[in-house]
Every structure is written in C-alpha cells, then in structure tokens.
C-alpha cells in the first residue's frame, strides 16, 4: 500500500471499518508522518459531525414499530428459494488424480458424489443391465451383410420397361415362374434383402399388359415401374 492508497482509506480507518491488516498499514503512514495529523484531524471532524444527530434533525418516533407491527399480518412472507445444492470444490488431491476433463465435469454436473449410496448402486445396476441387454442383442442378431435399401430405391442400372416387384408371402417358386412366363417378364436382379426383384418385359412384349396382369395376381404384393437409367 502506498501513501495515496493509505490516505484514501483514512475515512474508513477513522470509522473503524478497515481490516486489521489495512488499519495497520494506514497507521504506519500516520506514525511516520506521511499522513499529517491535520489531515487525520480533518477526517475525524467529518466523522464526528456526521455520526451525531444534529439539533435540526427530526427525532425518531419509536411508534413506527407499532404501526409496522399492525400491518405485518397483511404482508405475506415470500416462499424460500429452492435449496441450492452446493457442490464441494474439488480438492488439490482430486485434481491430481486425473479425473478431470469431461468425465470429471460430468460427475460434478450430475452431482454424483452427493447421490446417496443406495441410489448410486441402483443406478449402476440399471446401467449394467442395459449394457448387458444391448450386448446380448448384438451377439444374437443374424449377420446382415446386405446394404440397407428402401422399396423405392433405384437399382444401379435399369433398362426401359423395368419394374420393382415383390411377391406375396408364401409364393412358391413354381407360382413365381408361371406368373413371370405368363407376363412375358424375366428377373433382372434380386431378391434383395427386402425380397424385391427387378424384372423386365421382353422387348417385343406389351409391357403395360404384362404389368396389368401381374398387378391383377394375388401373388404380387408390390409392383412399380422403375425410371429408365
């Protein structure tokens, strides 16, 4: 603290409103003469005049209390604020354990250390159960190497007059063959993972009539022309 700072604090020194350390520092400047006695006396004069009630100041009426007390019942008290859970600051030791980063932040955010032990055990057990079920599902699932597709997906290369076709469940190979022969159509590709075939009508065949025939069959559940490409 320099002399100017000490002199700035002089009013609070006089008022007895400084910390012990600050008061000591200011006192040292007074004792050394760096802050003059007249400056100190001047501030003391201000303090004394301000602290006393002047003769022209109105008296305090203690009856104010009674008037306030009569109004108290008309003033409802506010509800307390929601309790704030104070998360203890991480200690230097904990800082050193390396549990910082996102995991540490997550643990603090979830207030894990403030969670009751029983609740912690239940949460951990639940998490383990979920992970176990997920692992079982993954291990038991049949391997699906085929790519994901939609019914409306367009095969890589199609010729004009090509259709996407799906047979109704339970259609036998013989039914399928008979149906395609009758419609003068051949399978270009398929079946896909969804059971879809790409079919094409013979170049000299009436594609519209063939398609109408297929649509009319109860063995065909889906038939849509493919855009040429």
């Amino acid at each position, binding site marked *: 603290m320099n002399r100017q700072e000490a002199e700035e604090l002089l009013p609070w020194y006089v008022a007895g409103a400084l910390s012990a350390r600050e008061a000591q520092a200011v006192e040292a400047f007074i004792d050394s003469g760096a802050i003059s006695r007249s400056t100190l006396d001047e501030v003391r004069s201000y303090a004394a005049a*301000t602290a006393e009630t002047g003769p022209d100041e109105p008296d305090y009426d203690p009856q104010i209390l009674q008037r*306030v007390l009569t109004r108290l019942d008309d003033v409802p008290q506010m509800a307390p604020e929601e309790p704030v859970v104070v998360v203890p600051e991480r200690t230097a030791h904990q800082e050193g354990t390396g549990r910082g980063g996102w995991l540490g932040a997550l643990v603090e955010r979830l207030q894990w250390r403030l969670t009751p032990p029983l609740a912690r055990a239940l949460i951990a057990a639940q998490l383990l159960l979920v992970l176990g079920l997920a692992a079982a599902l993954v291990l038991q699932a049949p391997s699906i190497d085929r790519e994901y597709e939609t019914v409306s997906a367009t095969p890589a290369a199609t010729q004009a007059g090509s259709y996407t076709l799906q047979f109704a469940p339970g259609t036998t190979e013989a039914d399928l063959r008979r149906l395609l022969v009758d419609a003068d159509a051949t399978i270009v590709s398929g079946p896909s993972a969804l059971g879809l075939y790409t079919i094409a009508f013979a170049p000299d065949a009436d594609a519209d009539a063939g398609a109408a025939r297929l649509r009319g069959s109860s063995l065909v559940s889906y038939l849509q022309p493919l855009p040429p490409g």
Partner: protein
Amino acid sequence: MSEAVSDIDRDQALIARIATGDKRAFEALFRVYGERVFRYAVRLISDPTRAEEVTNDVMLEVWKNAPRFEGRSRVSTWILGITRNLALNSIRRKALDTVTVDDAPPIADESTESAGAVALDRATLSQGIRAALSQLSQDHRDVVELTFFHGCSYEEIAEIVGCPEGTVKTRMFHARKQLHTLLARQGLDPASVEMAS
C-alpha cells in the same frame, strides 16, 4: 470492523427466526435497525414524514423477504441497501429537489481557501460540516453518511450503492475535497478543532 461478530451472529439469527414468521424476532430486529433506517432515509430524502414511510416499507420488505435472505452479505448491509433503494424511489416519485453529481456545487477558488479560518468550537464546526454535507451531491453524501454514520466498510458501501469499490474510494476523495472547500468558504478549518480522539 464496524460490527462485532456477536452483532452479526445476532442479526443472522433474528433473520432466520423472522423467516419462520416469528414476530418477536422481527420486533427485536426493528429495535436494532429502526432508527438507523430512519436516519439514513431522512438524510437521503430530507423529509421526515416520507422517511417514516420509507422506514415502514423497509422493515416490511425485511419481513417479507427474510425467507429469501441467503446471508451472502451482512444483515445491516442488506437492510441499508433496501433503505437506499426505497428512499431513492421515493425521491423519484415525489421529484424532490436533490443535488445530483452533475449539479454538485462548484468548488471555490483555491485563493479563497482558508481565508479567515479561525479556531472554532466543536458545535459550530459540526454545524458547518453538516451544512456543507447537505451541499454535496447525493452520491458523495451517501458515501460519507454510510462510512461515518453507519460505520460501513468501503466493500459494504460498494454493495449497498451498487458500484465498484474503487468508485466508493473516489467518491469519498471528492467528497472530502468538496467539504474542505465548502468549509474554507465559510472560514471554517475542520482540522482546527479536536472532534474526537
């Protein structure tokens, strides 16, 4: 500091009881702070009737908000802060004449300072200082009052007034300078009388 630790503990305990609707605790707190609140208000707004109304309102606010007092500051700081806000609201509402920082009285020429300063008795000097105080801007007067009448630290004043601690110190510096000049104009030397030991 300005308050003994036991006073701080007593205040906190009273507020805790008031928060539960304890009227006797409220009465006890009122006996401690009622006059302080009134004095602060009356010096801020220079109107005893309105200062009484402000005192009423301040203490009712304390009653109402005690359950939400979190103890982040001292009870005295909290109550004086409420007092200041309500007093200033009262001033704004009634458009009372107050001196703003910009309207602060001009400082007299240095040449006139100390001219005719004479040794004075304590009462005369006190009266002169109070008269000079009333001519300070409200912001400057506020800092002086809170320091010397209420014994607030500069940190507490910063909290009550809502400004940085550095600003509190600056305001006090200018207040002292203006007081000195205003007193010199009246031929008063504040250092000439031993006011307090």
